[in-house]
């Protein structure tokens, strides 16, 4: 914890917004906006993992893609520290500079099947960033690819194979090797294990952890599985309908959540232990529509602690405790339960 606060900030996101227009009719008149990412700010430090959880449609994937400008953000800044002296705003750079930025920031995808071009050999897939950036060629190129493939725990004898020769877990390793080709500092991992089998999941999680240690990588780890996020992250952010509702160190968030949504989310996770019949908080109703969110706090119609103020005023994003951010009017007064307490009790 203390070590992280000392380490330098690598990515700084400031009031990032992504609104998708809703078009209607032949003339494509804009009739509204889907607020996929709605005023989100956070920092990612060097060598740390920031976990990002939320339910489907909460905008976590869009947020990850905005950081790499695969999706063009509507507003806000993403400051990326390329070198100790130089920090650039990813949202402002031109195409050419963006391409050079991709040497430092990369991505690992969710679907191991659509993320590898089935018509290319492993050598070409993993080596593509090297080739495109003219890093090396010939012998050196093959050697570097071999090195990368070894790094992610695959056999170097299979470079001439095509992706169809590999299982989901192995393909995910290939995807990771490609992301590492240019020695990036920061990787957006978008649900990298959710398409994998349980036993393979663990292999990939371990690999990501080990690579982080060896290469001092920073991850933005997007997932919907809370136990996976808890396992891998140093800090965790929780999203609800395009907004960050809570951000804290993993320790704090899982033991003493401050936002009622986090509490409900934690309580909903089924435990692999039949003895613990967790007292689940069942949220009434359905997730809010990001095209037409409710007034005030977006979570208030489903919140059991909601008061009048929640219906009218949107809560501010505040640092309630050192390093523990939350957007809830009642964050200071509520005493919510996390998961570790339940277990010790």
């Amino acid at each position, binding site marked *: 914890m203390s070590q992280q606060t000392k380490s330098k900030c690598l990515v700084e996101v400031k009031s990032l917004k992504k609104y998708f227009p809703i078009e209607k009719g032949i003339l494509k008149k804009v009739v509204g906006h889907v607020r996929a990412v709605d005023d989100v700010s956070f920092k990612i430090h060097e060598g740390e993992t920031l976990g990002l959880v939320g339910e489907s449609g909460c905008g976590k994937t869009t947020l990850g893609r905005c950081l790499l400008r695969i999706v063009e953000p509507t507003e806000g800044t993403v400051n990326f520290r390329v070198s100790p002296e130089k920090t650039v705003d990813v949202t402002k750079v031109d195409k050419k500079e963006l391409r050079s930025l991709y040497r430092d920031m990369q991505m690992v995808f969710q679907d191991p099947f659509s993320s590898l071009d089935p018509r290319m050999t492993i050598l070409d897939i993993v080596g593509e960033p090297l080739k495109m950036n003219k890093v090396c060629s010939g012998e050196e190129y093959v050697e570097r690819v071999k090195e990368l493939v070894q790094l992610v725990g695959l056999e170097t004898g299979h470079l001439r194979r095509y992706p169809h020769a590999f299982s989901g877990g192995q393909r995910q390793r290939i995807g990771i090797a490609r992301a590492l080709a240019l020695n990036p500092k920061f990787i957006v991992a978008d649900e990298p294990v959710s398409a994998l*089998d349980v036993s393979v999941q663990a292999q990939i999680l371990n690999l990501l952890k080990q690579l982080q240690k060896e290469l001092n990588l920073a991850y933005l780890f997007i997932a919907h599985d809370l136990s996976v996020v808890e396992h*891998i992250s140093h800090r965790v952010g929780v999203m609800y309908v395009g907004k960050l509702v809570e951000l804290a160190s993993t320790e704090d968030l899982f033991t003493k959540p401050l936002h009622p949504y986090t509490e409900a989310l934690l309580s909903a996770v*089924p435990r692999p232990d039949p003895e613990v019949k967790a007292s689940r908080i069942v949220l009434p109703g359905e997730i809010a529509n990001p095209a037409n969110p409710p007034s005030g706090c977006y979570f208030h119609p489903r919140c059991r602690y909601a008061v009048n103020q929640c219906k009218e005023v949107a809560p501010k994003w505040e640092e309630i405790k050192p390093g523990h951010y939350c957007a809830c009017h009642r964050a200071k007064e509520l005493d919510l339960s996390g998961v570790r307490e339940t277990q010790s009790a």
Partner: protein
Amino acid sequence: MPDTILEVKNLKACFHLDEGQLRAVDGVSFAIQREETLGVIGESGCGKSVTALSILRLLMPPGKIEGGEILYYSDDNQVTDLAKLHPNGEQIRKIRGKEIAMIFQEPMASLSPVHTIGAQMMEFILLHNPGMKKNEAQEIALDMLNKVGVSNPALRLQNYPHQLSGGMCQRVMIATALSCNPRLLICDEPTTALDVTVQAQIIDLMEELQAEMGMSMLYITHDLGVIAEVADEVAVMYLGKIVEKCDVKTIFKKPMHPYTQRLMQSVPKLGSRQEMLDTIEGTVPIPIGMGAQCGFYSRCSHAEEGSCSRRSPALVEVEPGHFVRCFKYGSVEEGYLESANQI
């Protein structure tokens, strides 16, 4: 003493592919008791879904049931072997849906996009209750939607599936499946495509309904947490075989098969942080032309050259009610017998 409702004996199902014969289900036996839930855990490709489809005779070519019995004990103590019925015959159609219902993983894919929820539910009810009047069927549909917690059911009956969320669709599926008061409900990963909070709602709902309607369940999932919540008895499947079977408390407290042990350790547990997870090396092999060996041989840390690589162990009752398929516990002779049968 609860009595048996479904008994599967030595079920074998194969897929005939160009590459050879794929043994998806390879000698699976289990029984489901009245008002109890049998949970089946396994990774993709272990044959858990094929087992479920085989029971309802919904397995499509190139898949085929190759052997075994599926004994269904109906209310009047009649025994029917579902494996012997014609897959589209009248007998199975009477049982399918009415006596044994099923819920699938993708609620959106199981509902027709061109008909309203109401039309689909009523069609299902009328099909299994010939002679019933339309308004009676609608009454039942409304009642069921109310039961599964769908708000404003009268309006929902007129909605099309795409107008509902995934969770809502799964509720509709459950309502439809339960509308004919089935005695056995087969759930094939019903909450895998849903978010945790919705999953929590659905699991709570299913447990409530099971208690209320007194039905049995066969619950298939890969999620250990969900199994711990819903199941009374648990069967662990690997490569078309049940490798371990016992009650839910024992399996989590004292897993005995190396695969079950490793599987439990490889899942990150909420609230207990480990530096590194224990993993199972390698991947699930494809069961084509495997020959006689323990299916887990290639990934097992206890594997022994000789016994494990040449013979397939039998499912042995190691402790009362605790069955394990591993040479660590069973006698070699027994295992040898079974593998000889299989060749």
